[in-house]
C-alpha cells in the first residue's frame, strides 16, 4: 500500500509543471489532511508491537515524498527563473546610454605633457600677465622701440606703453625682478600676434623656460633641451642646434628635431630637410640679467621658448592651426 502510494506520488510529480500545482500536491500528501498525515494519525489504532515498524515505514515514505517534492521544486524554480530571464533579454548590440567622457583640448594635452616633463626635471611653474607693459615685453628684453627686431613679431597694441604680450619671455624678467638665483622655472601661457592664416592665429600658446645659476653653460642648455626632446618625442629623435638671433639671448640657437613625420628622409612638412624647428633658445643676454639686477659675473643662465600649437600640429598631423580655436565638436572629439 505505502509503496504504491509513493509510486503514485512520484508519477504525479512528473506531470506537474508549476509551483502552485506542486503546492497543491504537497498539501494532498503532506498537508494537515494529506494522505501521509492521515496514515500517521492512523498509527494510533495499531498495536504496540506493530506501531514502531509501521511508523518507521511511514516516515520513510514521508521522507521519500518530501525529497521528491523538493527536488521537483528546485527543478521548477530553475525553469521558472530561466523563463523569466529569457523574457527579460535585451538587445545588447544597441549603444549604451552615457553622456560620454569629454575630450581634453589637444593644446592642453600637449601643454600638460610639456609642463610635466620640466617639472620632473625640477623646474617650477610661473605666470605673468597677458596684457603686458611694453617695458617688459620688449625693452627689458633688449628690444628697444624703433629696433628692427620688433619686426620679428607683429604686435597688438593697447596703448603706446601696453601690448598683448607677443611671447612668454616677459615672465623671465618679472620673475627675476622678484626672485634671485638659483632659478629654474617654466612659464606656460597664451601669447598674441597680429597675424592670421593657415599657420598663424592671433592667439597661441608658448612655454618659456629659464635657468640661472652659477656655472650654467651652453652645454647645459643643450643637455636640458635634448632631454626634453627625447622625453617628448622619443629617445631616437635627433636634435640639432644651430645659431640664430634673439635680442634677449647671446649666443642664440634654433633647435631642430629630426622630422617625426618622415623620420628624417625628407617630406612636405619638413620641406625635404629632414628637420623641424621646434624651439628657440640661448644663453640669457647679460643686458637682460643686468636689467633685473643679477650679477652677470657670478651668474649665467639659459632661456628657451617653444610654440605649443606647432608641436601639437606635428604630433597629431593637424594641417590648419585655426581649427584649434574654432571649437567645432567634430574636431575636438577626435582627440
Amino acid at each position: 500500500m505505502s509503496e504504491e502510494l509513493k509510486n503514485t506520488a512520484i508519477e504525479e510529480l512528473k506531470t506537474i509543471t508549476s509551483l502552485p500545482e506542486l503546492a497543491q500536491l504537497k498539501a494532498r500528501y503532506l498537508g494537515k489532511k494529506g494522505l501521509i498525515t492521515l496514515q500517521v494519525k492512523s498509527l494510533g489504532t495499531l498495536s504496540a508491537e506493530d506501531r514502531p515498524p509501521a511508523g518507521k515505514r511511514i516516515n520513510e515514505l514521508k521522507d521519500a515524498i518530501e525529497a521528491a517534492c523538493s527536488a521537483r521544486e528546485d527543478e521548477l524554480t530553475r525553469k521558472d527563473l530561466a523563463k523569466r530571464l529569457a523574457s527579460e533579454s535585451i538587445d545588447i548590440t544597441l549603444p549604451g546610454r552615457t553622456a560620454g567622457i569629454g575630450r581634453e583640448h589637444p593644446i592642453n594635452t600637449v601643454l600638460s605633457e610639456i609642463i610635466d616633463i620640466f617639472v620632473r626635471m625640477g623646474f617650477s611653474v610661473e605666470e605673468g600677465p597677458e596684457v603686458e607693459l611694453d617695458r617688459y615685453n620688449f625693452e627689458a628684453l633688449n628690444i628697444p622701440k624703433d629696433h628692427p627686431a620688433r619686426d620679428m613679431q607683429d604686435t597688438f597694441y593697447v596703448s603706446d606703453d601696453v601690448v598683448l604680450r607677443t611671447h612668454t619671455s616677459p615672465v623671465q624678467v618679472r620673475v627675476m625682478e622678484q626672485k634671485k638665483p638659483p632659478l629654474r622655472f617654466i612659464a606656460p601661457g597664451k601669447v598674441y600676434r597680429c597675424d592670421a592664416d593657415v599657420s598663424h592665429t592671433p592667439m597661441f600658446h608658448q612655454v618659456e623656460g629659464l635657468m640661472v645659476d652659477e656655472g650654467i653653460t651652453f652645454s647645459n642648455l643643450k643637455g636640458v633641451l635634448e632631454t626634453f626632446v627625447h622625453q617628448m618625442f622619443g629617445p631616437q629623435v635627433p636634435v640639432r642646434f644651430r645659431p640664430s638671433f634673439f635680442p634677449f639671448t647671446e649666443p642664440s640657437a634654433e633647435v631642430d628635431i629630426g622630422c617625426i613625420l618622415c623620420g628624417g628622409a625628407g617630406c612636405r612638412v619638413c620641406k625635404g630637410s629632414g628637420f623641424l624647428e621646434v624651439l628657440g633658445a640661448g644663453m640669457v643676454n647679460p643686458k637682460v640679467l643686468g636689467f633685473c639686477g643679477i650679477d652677470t659675473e657670478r651668474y649665467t643662465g639659459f632661456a628657451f621658448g617653444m610654440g605649443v600649437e606647432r608641436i601639437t600640429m606635428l604630433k597629431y598631423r593637424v594641417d590648419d592651426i585655426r581649427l584649434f580655436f574654432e571649437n567645432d565638436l567634430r574636431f575636438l572629439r577626435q582627440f
Partner: protein
Amino acid sequence: MRVPFNWLKEFVEISDAPEALAHRLTMSGFEVEAIERIGDDAVFEVNVTPNRPDCLSVVGIAREVAALYGRSVNLPDLTIVSEAKALDFNIDVLDAELCNRYAGRIVRNVKIGPSPAWMRERLEKCGVRAINNVVDVTNYVLLEFGHPLHAFDLNLLKGGRIRVGTPRSVLQSDNPMRFYTLDGEERRIDPDMLLIWDAEVPVAVAGVMGGLNTEVKDLTTDVFIESAYFEPTSIRRTSRTLGLKTESSYRFERGTDIKIMKKALDRAALLIKDLAQGAMYGKLDIYPKRWHPYEVKVRYSRVNHVLGLALTHGRILESLQGLGLDITEGSREFFIVKTPPYRRDITMEEDVIEEVARMVGFDNISPELPRTAFAADDAVSTAGKIMPLKRKIRAAFLTSGYTETINYSFIGKADLDLLRLAADDERNVCVRVQNPLREEDAFMRTFMLPSLIRNLATNVAQGNRELRLFEQARIFLGRPGEALPEEREHLAALVYREKIKSLYRDETPDFYHVKGLLEALFADMRLSGVCWKRSEEPFLHPGQSADIFIGESKIGFAGVLSPLVVNTLDIKAQKPSVIVVELDLTSLMPHIGAGADYRAIARFPFVERDTALVVDASLDAAAILGHVRAFRSDVIEDTAIFDVYQGASLGEGKKSVAFSVRYRAIDRTLTDDEVDAVHAELVQHVSEKTGGHVRA
C-alpha cells in the same frame, strides 16, 4: 635674401655642391630655407636675422662662406681708369646725426636703355624687376654689396647742390609738408623726417624712396648717384610712419657699412660707364661724423665658462680668423677685438663668444645636464596654486562628459550687447586693442560666456545637436587709471541639447544637472559657505538660474540662458535648452578648504526616519534643509530632501517637502525610542521655524 650660387662663386672659391654649402650656412646661423634651381644656377633663399644686415648681400654671404671654409674674398676690380675732375657741385649735410656720411658721383652723357641680359637675369633671380640700365645698376650694386644707392636725374636737380636735412633744419619749419615719391604717391612728411633736397625743394625721402621730381627716365642724360650712411632709427621711424618699406629702408634701418659705401659708389659708376657709355666725374664725399670701431675685451676663461668648453687660447683665436675682426692679444687672460664697420652687432664680450661658438660649431659643444643645487626658494608661485585646481576641475568636467574648448581672448561689442548687460556692469569695461584683426575681436573678454555662445552658434550651424563644453582661461577687467587690467582665472561651461529623436528617454538637461556637478566639485574642493541665490543676471532665465556666493562675494552664476538671448541666436531647433555656468576661480581660491580631516566611522547600525512637511509653496527647499541642519544632535549622520510635491489636496499655495534623516551613534546601538524622541524634537523644531505641519 635670395642669393644665386653662381654669383656667390665670383667672390669666393666654392668646391662644395649647393646643397652641402646650404647646410654649412644653415648650421652657422644663415638658414637656407629653400634652394631654387634656375637653369644651371641654384638660388638660395637665406633667412638673414636682423642682427646681420651685412649679409643682406652677395658679398656679405661670400665673406661668411670664406670664413667657414678658410678662404679669401675676391671683390670686383674697382680701379678707376679715367675720370674727369669733380664738377662744381655742392653737398651740405645739415643733420650729421641722421646722416653720418654722404657721397656721390656724377656720370654724364649716359644712354638710357635696357640692361644686358646677364644683369636682367641676375636681378630677376633675386626678385628685382629690371627697369633701365642706370636704375638696374643701382639695384644690382645694392644686391651685390648690400649698400642702397639712388640715382637722380642731374638736370632736374636745381642749383647744382644737394642738401641733407629735415624740414625742421632746412626750412626751420614745424609743419608737415607734402612730397611725391617715385611710386606716384603723395606723402605727408613730418618735420623730423630726413629728406634729400636740391637748392630749392626736396628730391628724396632719405634712405626710403626717391622723389618723382628727379626720377631717371628714358630721356635722362646726366645722373647723380648717391651713396650715404643714414642713421638706422631715423630711417625706421620714417619708413614706419609712411607705411613704406623698401629694399633701401630695410637695409638702412638695420645698419649699413659706412666704408663699403664708397666701393659701392665706384662699382655703380663703373657699371654705368660700361653699360650706358657715360663719362665719370670725380667723387664727392662729405663725412661729418666719423665711425670708430668698437673695442671689446674678451676673456679666454669667460668663453669657456659660458659655452661649457675647454678650448685653448690658440683654438679660440683661430676660430675668429676670417671674420674680419681686428684681434690684439692683450695678456694671458684676454684679447681685444676691434670690429669692422659691417659688424655693428658686436658690442660686448658675449657677442664675440657667440662668434666663437658659431665657428667652432654648435655640434661640437656636447650636451651635459647641469649640476645644480635644488632651488632654495620654494615659495609656491601663483601658477603653482591655480594649476592643480584647474587640472582638478578639468578632470571633473571631462568625466561628466564636457569637452574642453580654447577660445581667443577677443570679443566684440555685439557679444556684450547680446547679453543685455546693465550700463554700469563692470564687464563693460574692456581693454581695447588698437589694431584688431577685425572689429568683432577688438576687446579682451571680461567674462567667458560670450565666447561659449560663439561656440554654440558655430556648432549648431554645423549640425551638432548636443553640446557640453567648458573652458578655463583668463579674463581681463579694465581698471581706469591703471596701465594694466586685472586678470582673473575663470571657468565657464555650456550645455545645449535640442529635442531630438533618441533611443533612450530624452533627458533634457536642466539647471539641476549643472548645479549637481558644481556642488560635487565644491564638495571636492572642501569649499564652505557656498550660497545659491536667485540670479539677477540679465541674460539668464529669472526663474531657473542662480548667482553663487561665498559670504558677500559673488563667485559666479549658473542657469538657463534667457529665451531673449537664445531667440537672437540663429538656432532653428524647437525648444532648445541652453544651460550656462561661469565661476571666478581667482575669488574662489582663498575659500578652498584644507585637506582631509579624518573622523572615526561609526560601527553601529543606523536608523532612518522620513517626514513630509506641508509648508508655503514660496519657501525654498534650501531654507527647510537649513533648519534641519541647524538642529544640533550628535546622533544625526546625514539629512537629505527626497521629494517635493505640490497638489490640490495640500491646499492653495502649499507644497509638501519630504526629507529623510539618518541616525547613528558612534558608541552604541540606538534604540527606537531614543530615535523617535530626537526625530520628534527635530520635526517640531523645523515645523516651528517654517510654519509648516507634518503632512497627514
